[in-house]
């Protein structure tokens, strides 16, 4: 079963992601803040992929990704933000689990987003297997 975490504070946006991925046969968990998402992970949710917004109440998306990595959760992450000037920080760019392609909201092409998530995951697996 494919599990995906949708982290976005904007309800309608979050819901549209959830609806799309559910239609594509994904199992979704959603959170409106980084803290809430970490709590879900602690409680046993183990998504293979995540869509992460950057501007969030409390911890921001970058901090959430760092926290996920430091806690050794394994998931492919794609950043999806409405901020035009956002760029992925260098320390996160270096991580295999984070896609270097940032999706700007509104996302017009959901399929590309799904493809990016899967290819990031595959890339991650390949590297892990070669180690």
């Amino acid at each position, binding site marked *: 079963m494919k599990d995906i975490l949708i982290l976005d504070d904007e309800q309608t946006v979050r819901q549209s992601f959830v*609806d799309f991925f559910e239609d594509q046969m994904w199992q979704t968990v959603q959170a409106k803040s980084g803290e809430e998402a970490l709590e879900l992970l602690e409680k046993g949710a183990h998504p293979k992929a995540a869509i992460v917004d950057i501007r969030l109440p409390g911890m921001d998306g970058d901090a959430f990704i760092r926290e996920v990595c430091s806690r050794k959760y394994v998931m492919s992450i794609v950043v999806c933000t409405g901020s035009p000037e956002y760029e992925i920080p260098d320390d996160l760019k270096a991580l295999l689990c984070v896609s270097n392609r940032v999706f700007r909201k509104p996302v017009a092409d959901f399929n590309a987003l799904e493809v990016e998530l899967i290819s990031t995951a595959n890339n991650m697996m390949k590297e892990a297997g070669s180690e």
Partner: protein
Amino acid sequence: MNENSFFNYDQFMPHGMCYLWQPDILWASVVSDVITALAYYSITAAVIVFVKKRKDLPYPWFFILAGSIIFMACGTTHLISAVVIWEPIYGISAISKSITAISSLATGILIWFVLPFFLSLKSPSVLEQVVLKRTEELANSNDLLNNEVAVHKQAREQLVLLKNYMRNIIDSMPSVLIGVDLDSKVIQWNYEAEQVTGISTEDATGQQLADAFPSLLCELPKVEKAIKTRQLQNEVKRPRKQDGILRYEDITIYPLVTNGIEGAVIRLDDVTEQVRMEEMMIQSEKMLSVGGLAAGMAHEINNPLAGMMQTAVVMKNRLSSKDMPANIAAAEESGTHLEAIHNYMEARGILRMVSDINKSGQRVANIVDNMLSFARKNDSVYSSQNLNELMDKTLDLAATDYDLKKQYDFKTMNIVKSYEESMPLVPCESAKIQQVLLNILRNGAQAMQSAGSENATFTLLTRYEADRDVACLEIKDNGPGMDETTRKRVFEPFFTTKPIGEGTGLGLSVSYFIITENHGGELSVVSELGKGTSFYIRLPLSGAEKVA
């Protein structure tokens, strides 16, 4: 015998008898008398001539009396003495002697009265000394006078020098300086005033201020007030129309309060450029804050927009995807099947509507993105750009530019590219250069559209000018072109040929600023009525030497 009377001298003896006719005594006596008589007459004549010639002689009557009468009488008496030797006219002799006696007596008395005066007359030697002294005094005072004249001449030269110096100072002032007297008559008129009015100092001097400088007519009350209150009067940024162009002036009126001079000096400064610069700064300040605002707004707009558009995408999937298991299951549960739903959607145009929502949303997203293209901070650094690529990017941007697309029908305009293939890279701020290119394209499109130009075409040329080491980009249109006046003012801030509300008049002046000030480049325009317009952007490959 006849009795002897006074004039009957028959009985008398001639005087010669007394000499017993002894010839030596007789002739000696006669000759002496005659000579004496002649001498006396000569003296008489001399005295008369002297008195007549010397008009300034005091007491002329005295000289006539003492001189002529006495000498005349004496002479005659002597002459008669000679005659009586032979003719005994003793009566006549007696009368002659009597006249001599009376005149001599009168002179003898009168001489005592006139004596003090003659004593007071200076002798020639004394007079000479006096004259010498006077001459010396005269020479001294002449020297003094000469000195005085020299000092005066020097003072006058200095005065002229000072006057010229002052005139020079006043003339070299960049302000119009006009001096007026109490009756508002011009008494000073400097070079700048000549330049501004075209009236020479000679012509202006003495004229009424209102005649010489009509636009100052409304300032006359202020001039009067300045003189009356002895306080400076001024007005800043006074607007004035000149040849249809709005210009601004600062006017300062200084009252002249120095003793002996009354009136005022009017100073006029054209501050149009400063005012325009200030306005431009304010405008760009505003635009900067709009840019900052845009960045913040973008996030706020993008999120609800994402909610809308992404939901519409999912909606479309659920309405039209016939092989999606969830769709099939939901349809069956509802007692229908996907085919029927799809037919209904088609019949009611629902899918078209959803697609419209997406298209409109995409347009909002593009507007936000375009707005941000000028606000993005990370682009404000210099990067090496190829003008060909930059031009192409701008064309893409122009194709999505709402104004260009909708108002000016940019899509229907032809684009002819004539790029030099190996253009060197130019250091520049790409966003700003794109802003300039967009401005020029927008102006050209507007001009071609409003003139209804057929086969409207932009020709874009790039080339490297090796002699100046600059990259040149030419944007040429085949629009209506500009007349000389418009062409000269096209980069002027707030100059616009568009109707009020359509253009800010800032686009090209900001462009000019970006190219010349920010990039040390050159923005020029060549245009002729009916022959289209070409804008030339030249950017130095060495980069901007003076970055504002």
